[in-house]
């Protein structure tokens, strides 16, 4: 049987997933992953009915992580939810959040448009217009960068190396935080890799899946898979720096779709920190770090933990002289992609994140490190600290030398 197979029959009803569900812990109305996932899956075969409970699932994957039987519970929820929403009116906010890539591409075509939109979103929030379409006016929204990653990359002079990797920036890095993508490039260069990009790549599809647009997500999967097949044939690994993109490309594609090569591509895709940690294991990591005198807390994104790769950021960052980092180990931040940005989920999202926010406050740090863009937004807003990607620290350490 293949690794990522969706088989609700495997569920023993052991309820471990309910004990690990951060949403069920704070919302009594949510009946928890066991019931909305595998238990209801049997009943959905009997009669498809609307299940309001499905809307509570944040797709954070803690159920999948905890399941001792290997049931991809959250994926069952996402599939059932998409089916439930099929043919019904689409709330504007859900549509917008699922299609962030379209907005990003549109803005990228017009100089200065990003800052106008950022201003507009701020204005919209203060006027309550976002709430009207279902997006929380209290949630931190990603702001758009004036120059996309792809544009910045083009004007960056790289050293040429024999060893090459393909960097898949994903929407967040390309449109919102290109500086992280540039640090990825610099860090890879410092390790003797030439970085290629492929502008043919499209959004991984993760926001489309949670928005119920499985058909569109499938199209994206088809496109990305065929491009990944091409790069794999050349022997170039693919690097991601967004844990939700990584999870989608490596794992959720196989749970949701059927395209030739997905399983083999999964073995050729690495998160940037996973890649660096692997180099270190092989004694190939450039450890010529300068001093970084700082103390930070690390938050492991759920979508990173779902990939079962350990905590490579901690492994790598602990090599930097003067730098101290500790694992917060405080569970889900509550944001889970766009979940915490929804008007009717903001409160739930903040309740989920409370443990983490308290942990950060108690630690008294000014900066928190996390591999996921929306985790960073949530941490910045919930704990009022700076939140950065681990590769930014690595880049700083190389620069300090």
């Amino acid at each position, binding site marked *: 049987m293949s690794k990522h197979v969706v*088989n*609700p029959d495997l569920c023993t*009803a052991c309820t471990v997933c309910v004990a690990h569900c951060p949403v069920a812990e704070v919302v009594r109305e949510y009946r928890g992953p066991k019931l909305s996932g595998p*238990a209801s899956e049997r009943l959905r075969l*009997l009669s498809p009915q609307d299940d309001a409970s499905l809307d509570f699932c944040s797709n954070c994957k803690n159920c999948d992580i905890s399941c001792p039987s290997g049931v991809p519970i959250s994926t069952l929820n996402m599939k059932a939810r998409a089916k439930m929403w099929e043919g019904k009116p689409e709330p504007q906010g859900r549509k917008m959040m699922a299609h962030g890539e379209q907005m990003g591409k549109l803005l990228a075509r017009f100089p200065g448009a990003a800052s106008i939109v950022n201003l507009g979103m701020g204005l919209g929030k203060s006027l309550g217009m976002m709430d009207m379409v279902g997006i929380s006016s209290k949630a931190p929204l990603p702001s758009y960068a004036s120059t996309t990653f792809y544009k910045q990359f083009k004007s960056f002079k790289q050293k040429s190396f024999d060893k090459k990797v393909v960097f898949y920036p994903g929407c967040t890095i390309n449109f919102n935080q290109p500086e992280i993508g540039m640090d990825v490039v610099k860090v890879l260069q410092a390790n003797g890799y030439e970085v290629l990009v492929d502008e043919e790549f499209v959004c991984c599809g993760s926001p489309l899946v949670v928005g119920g647009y499985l058909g569109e997500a499938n199209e994206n999967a088809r496109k990305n898979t065929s491009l990944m097949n091409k790069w794999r044939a050349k022997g170039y690994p693919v690097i991601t720096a967004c844990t939700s993109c990584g999870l989608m490309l490596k794992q959720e594609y196989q749970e949701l779709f059927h395209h030739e090569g997905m399983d083999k591509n999964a073995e050729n895709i690495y998160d940037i920190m996973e890649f660096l940690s692997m180099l270190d294991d092989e004694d190939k990591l450039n450890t010529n770090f300068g001093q970084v005198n700082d103390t930070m807390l690390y938050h492991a994104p759920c979508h990173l933990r779902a990939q079962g790769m350990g905590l490579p950021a901690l492994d790598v960052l602990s090599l930097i002289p003067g730098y101290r980092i500790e694992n917060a180990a405080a569970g889900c931040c509550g944001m889970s992609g766009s979940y915490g940005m929804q008007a009717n989920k903001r409160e739930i999202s903040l309740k989920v994140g409370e443990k983490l926010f308290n942990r950060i406050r108690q630690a008294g740090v000014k900066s928190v490190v996390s591999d996921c863009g929306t985790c960073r937004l949530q941490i910045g807003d919930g704990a009022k600290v700076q939140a950065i990607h681990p590769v930014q620290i690595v880049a700083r350490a190389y620069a300090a030398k």
Partner: protein
Amino acid sequence: MEKVTAIVIGGGATGVGILRDLAMRGVDAMLIEQRDLAHGTSSRYHGLLHSGARYAVKDAEAGRECIEENTILRRIGRHCVEATEGFFVRTVEDPEDFEAKWVEGCKNCGISAVQISVEEALRLEPNLSPKIKAVYRVPDAAIDGFRMVWQNVASARRYGAKVRTYTEVVRINSTNGQVTGVTVRDYFTGQEYQIACDFVISAVGSWAGELAAKAGLQVGVQPDKGTLIAFNHRIASRVINRLHQASDGDIFVPHGSITILGTTSMAADKADDTEPSVEEVKKLLNIGRVLFENIDDYRILRAFTGTRPLYSADPNAKGRGASRGFVTLDHAHDGLKGFISIVGGKFTTYRLMAEKAVDMVCEYLGNKTPCRTAEEDIVEDPSEALMGRAKKFFPVHGASLAASRLGAEGLSRVVDKLEKQPSSRQLVCECENVTLAEVEEAAADPTSFTLSDVRRKTRMGMGTCQGAFCTYRTVGTMVANDLTNGQDSKELLKDFIEARWKGIRHVLWGNAIRETELTRGIYEGTLNVNGAMKK
């Protein structure tokens, strides 16, 4: 001494059908059942409401009876029948020449059999083997044996009938060749007592020979053992039959949340020989694999066995060759007036069988009230308003499941409780969406003595976890509400888990063994029900 006009013996489909019919015609009647309602064959079969197509070639009369009763039950029994329709599928292994005979047979019986393309069939039922050769649609349906029995009793009670479960017949009493009553024994206390009556109607299926012997008579019923497998989910949304001469393991029925595959057929020594075997399970899987190639990937919940009552005037006729038709025997001809046995037949024709038996009683009584069991719904539809109230508390699928289990009256009581007592909204059985309020409703019924009785009324414990979680929750509820009838709570736990184990131990591989280990951990470990761990 208690006195009723007619005593019906046997709480299966036929017995409850007779009770309802008697009560609706104004005859004072009581039903006696040795264990719980639907304890025997009526819950140990595949849950198929035959269209009659299975009998179209070999037994046209049975085929015609089936389609008539099927049409009636789909109307009056909406709350226990799911009109799934059925496929007859000719596979690579089925002889081609049977097909034309079968099509002709269906036509003769008045059974609609419409051929569809293999592509269309695979679109509708994607799990079917792509190697299938020909497919016909027929009006088969699924019927829930427990609910059907339970709902007939609810209807009979509304007309004044009485029901006594866990009451065994010791003797049929008579004076001068006329029935005067029965001597019965309380299963729990062992106490014997008499009930007077003018008529005894034996509707005990496979037990008919044993019961007749208690009146010193002989009835030629051969119990025939059939084993079935229950799968964890729906493999198909329709009944799937093999298009060949009726044989073992050739029917899959979507039954509520599960699928049932059956059955085997072999002569049994006794009516209560209901122990399945691993060999039978393997045999069924081997046959089933022709229709569903991936059958080994589907989780088996349990195997179970029932005995069919095959009647033959010749007591030596055995197996599938014996008639599946039914006979109403007036034992006045054997020298005992007032004793009637109804034997043979099948679940699908239970109502017709009941009608014939009650006609016979009414003839004696001079009761001219016509039979109305084919016209009146067994239970009423719950109103939209009631369903709206129910949906506030049940998980999404729970409201309609509960409505079909409880009928309008029962649902109304349960919803009242859900509204007034928030604690009763808790799900006791998550696999089958059973709330605490519903468990309490079932446990409080006078026919509920054990946890298995509650299970049969609610489906609690019959889903994926097979009682792992709902058992201790329900026992807790029964203890808290004083519904244990003085039974030890530890014994209640053990009895229920043992009853589940009976069906699991013959399918102990794959997911079932993982589930069993979890259950064992909960009951033997955490709850220490066997006392293995000393303080």
